[in-house]
C-alpha cells in the first residue's frame, strides 16, 4: 500500500476510543463509539480483510448503535452518579510498562503480508488452492466459514440464537 492514510486512521481510532470513554453524555458516547466502529472497519478494509470490515461496519456501527440508543431511551441518558476514582498507582506504573513490553515483543512478529510467516504457510495455502475446485466458491473466506469450518459457524449461530432468546426472556416479561 502506497497511500499514507494509515497513520491518520489509527490516530482517529485512538481518539474516538478515548472520547467514547471520557464523554459524560451517554448518547454522544454511543455515537462516538459508532464512529469508532466505522474507522475500525476502514482499518480492516485497509488490511485487506474486506469481510471483517463489512461485519464491523454493519454490526458495530449500525446495529450496536441502535441497541445502545434503544437501551438509553429506556434508562437515564446522563452518566451522573458514577464517579470515577483515580487510577491506582500500580496500574498507572504497571500498564505503560506492560505496553512497552508488548511493543518490544511485537518486533518479533512476522512482517505484514510476509509469505513466509507461519500463518500463511500452515493451512491457508490449502484453502486458497482448493476452495474453487472443492466447492466452486471464489471467496475463500465464505468457503472456509461455511464449508471447511461449518461446525464452528453452526455453533456461532447457536450463540446468536441463544442471545436473542435470553433477551426475550429477560426483557419481555408478561408481554407476549
Amino acid at each position, binding site marked *: 500500500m502506497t497511500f499514507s492514510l494509515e497513520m491518520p486512521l489509527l490516530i482517529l481510532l485512538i481518539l474516538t476510543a478515548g472520547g467514547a470513554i471520557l464523554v459524560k453524555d451517554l448518547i454522544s458516547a454511543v455515537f462516538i463509539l459508532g464512529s469508532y466502529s466505522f474507522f475500525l472497519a476502514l482499518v480492516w478494509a485497509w488490511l485487506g480483510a474486506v469481510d471483517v470490515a463489512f461485519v464491523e461496519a454493519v454490526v458495530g456501527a449500525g*446495529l450496536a448503535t441502535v441497541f445502545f440508543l434503544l437501551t438509553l431511551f429506556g434508562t437515564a441518558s446522563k452518566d451522573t452518579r458514577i464517579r470515577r476514582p483515580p487510577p491506582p498507582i500500580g496500574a498507572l506504573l504497571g500498564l505503560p510498562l506492560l505496553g512497552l513490553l508488548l511493543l518490544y515483543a511485537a518486533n518479533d512478529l512476522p512482517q505484514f503480508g510476509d509469505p513466509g510467516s507461519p500463518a500463511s504457510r500452515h493451512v491457508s495455502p490449502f484453502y486458497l488452492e482448493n476452495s474453487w475446485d472443492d466447492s466452486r466458491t471464489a471467496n475463500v473466506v465464505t468457503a472456509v466459514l461455511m464449508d471447511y469450518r461449518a461446525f464452528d459457524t453452526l455453533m456461532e449461530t447457536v450463540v*446468536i440464537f441463544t442471545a436473542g432468546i435470553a433477551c*426475550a426472556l429477560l426483557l419481555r416479561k408478561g408481554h407476549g
Partner: protein
Amino acid sequence: MIRAHESVIVQMLSRLLVPLVQLYAMFILFFGQYGPGGGFVGGVMFAASLILGMLVFGPETPSWNVATRLLKGDGVGLIIFVAVGGLCLIAGGEFLNYAEMEIPGLDTPSRRYLGIIMTQIGVAADVAVTAISIVYSLSAVQHNGGPDA
C-alpha cells in the same frame, strides 16, 4: 415506547431506503460466494432495514407488522442449518459434509456449493430474526412503563 417519526423528510427517505437496503442485503447474501459478504452480513442488513421501518413508521404499520410476524420464525434459521447437516448424515456421510448430500445430477463441487448457499440462508434467517427480536424486546421494556424518555 416507539412512536412514528413525524418528520416528512425522514419518512420519505426511509420509504426509499428500506426496499433499497433489502435489495442490497439479498445481493450481499447471494453474492457472498464471489465477493465479500455472506449470510451473517446479509441477515443483519435485512434486519436493519426492517428495524429502520419499525423505528420510523412506528407500531401498527405494515413494516412493524412484517417485523413482528417474522419473530414467530425464531429458530427457523438454526433448523435450516442443522437440517442441511442432517441431510448429509441421512445420506450416509458426516455431519455438515455437503459432498455427501444425495442429489442426483450434481457433481461434488456443486453439492458443496449448494450446501454453502443453504447454510448461508439459515445463518441469515437466524441473525435477522435475532436482531429484530432484540429491538422488539428493548421497545417492550419501555412499553411496560419504564421511564419514558
